[in-house]
């Protein structure tokens, strides 16, 4: 997530198994530790519920991008065909919205698709020149990582480390950005 500010310190618990990490998320949240995020090479069923993340706002973003597209299409077609250079095509009125519905539709889809790609890159801190935050490279292969933001937890580092170990973490590393 993009809410990582510089010089923040993370505890990274590395797990070998998706079932273990799912159970660990439940146990650790019950113990009162706030989890920052869990990284997995593949989607784990029920993980987002167990993490208690709030509902995604991506739908609202998609709607706003789409609305921008629709309004662009309406103004574009109206300006060109209805106002600037009215033309009669196929015996219709010079501006007949029905025949422009495919354009409204296409620009809505185009704007929301491109907008969502941009949103994805921004919210994940990705981009051509950006160096991505990587907690552990092995999460792209066969390991699962649970990250804990130390600045958001009052529990001491040693305690959290032992909680992670007890929940089944194979190793616990410290990562600083």
């Amino acid at each position, binding site marked *: 997530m993009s809410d990582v500010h510089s010089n923040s310190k993370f505890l990274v618990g590395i797990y070998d198994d998706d079932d273990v990490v799912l159970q660990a998320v439940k146990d650790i949240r019950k113990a009162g530790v706030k989890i920052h995020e869990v990284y997995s090479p593949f989607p784990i069923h*029920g993980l987002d*519920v167990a993490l208690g993340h709030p509902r995604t706002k991506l739908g609202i973003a998609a709607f706003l991008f789409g609305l921008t597209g629709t309004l662009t299409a309406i103004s574009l077609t109206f300006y060109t065909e209805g106002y600037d250079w009215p033309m009669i095509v*196929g*015996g219709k009125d010079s501006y007949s919205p*029905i025949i422009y*519905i495919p354009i409204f539709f296409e620009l809505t889809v185009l704007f929301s698709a491109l907008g969502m790609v941009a949103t994805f890159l921004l919210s994940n801190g990705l981009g051509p020149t950006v160096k991505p935050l990587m907690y552990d490279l092995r999460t792209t292969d066969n390991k699962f990582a649970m990250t804990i933001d130390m600045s958001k937890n009052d529990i001491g580092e040693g305690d959290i480390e032992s909680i992670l170990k007890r929940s089944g973490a194979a190793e616990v590393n410290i990562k600083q950005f």
Partner: protein
Amino acid sequence: MGLGAGVVLVALGCFLAASGGGHETHEVAHAAGAEHAEGAAHHAYKWTNRLWANVWLNAIYFTGASVIGMFFMSYNYLAQAGWSVAFKRVPEALPAYLPIMGIVVLAVFFLAGHDLFHWTNPALYDTASPEYDPIIAGKRGFLNTPFYVIRVALYFVLWYVLWRMIRSYSLQEDLSAGTDYYYKSLRVGVIFLVVFAVTSSTSAWDFVMSIDTHWFSTMFGWYTLASWHVTGLAIITLTVLALKERGYLQVVTESHLHDLGKFMFAFSIFWTYVWFAQFMLIYYANLPEETIHYREIFSGFGGIYKAPFFINLTLNFVFPFLVLMTTAAKRTGIILKVAAWGIVIGHYFDFYVNIMPGTVGSHGGFGPMEFGMILIFASGFVWSVYSQLEKANLVPKHHPMLEESLHHDIN
């Protein structure tokens, strides 16, 4: 099992149909009076036309609702889908109504084909006759009574026989473990999809499009399939919800309902896409022989079909689109029910605006005859579905995907 609900619904339907029937005679007298007053203005119109058109309309609507059960099962087998297994006995129960519909369709064609289908008039093909119509005569190779009857009979026989096969495999699977019956069903499903790919289009031409014999649309097969499909999905959803509420099918979870909701949402939009594609091409091209179809609905016959035209668009697009938009709506029984009822009623109007203007024209309307006929057909359908559901375990046994379906979980 669902007997209580079925009997109550059938009794209610019969009671209402009987009282609807009472009104019908009233209506009939009224229509006959109007006929007298109008004299010979409409030489071909008899009050029975409206009755037959109603029977035809409902028969086509419920044929679609029935055959979609088989369609749903077939593509779920072909996709090797697991999630739908928990309630697969519901779509499996729908096609049992097909033989009755087949008999009704053929009977109406033999009894009243001349009143409903302009092309059955032999004078149209006689060059010496003043009624000779070169356009319709050009379609004779396809639209002639023997070939028509063979085709219609073939649709119902093929659909029904393939359904009987998949049904019997499904019942035998309950008794024996292993994947034999699963693969057999898959094969039948694939055959059905190939058959249905052709017959869904041709049956749409035969049942609905040939009423306006001059007019044709290359989108019509898809359009009717889309309409039938989303109706069938709404009926499956309603049946699953009805069973779940009465304490059966407890294995169906919010996740299954969510997926059914997505299906209804997506295919309502698909129907709108096809509807609009057909409408816009005709609107844009502006050819008189094509626009006549929409002119008749929109402004013909004193504008009596204008309201159904907008009801059709509202109930089938705007309503499900807005109601089923959010995740929470698709997981809530009552909202799903409202949307599904909207779709079921809306698609009746879809067929209404396609069948009524060409068959009864200015004599159409929406009165007790329409209501009574819907109730007669609908009670028969509900009885047929529930009696099929009673005959087997509501949750199949030994289906290889059953475990997957029981643990179906989407968030």
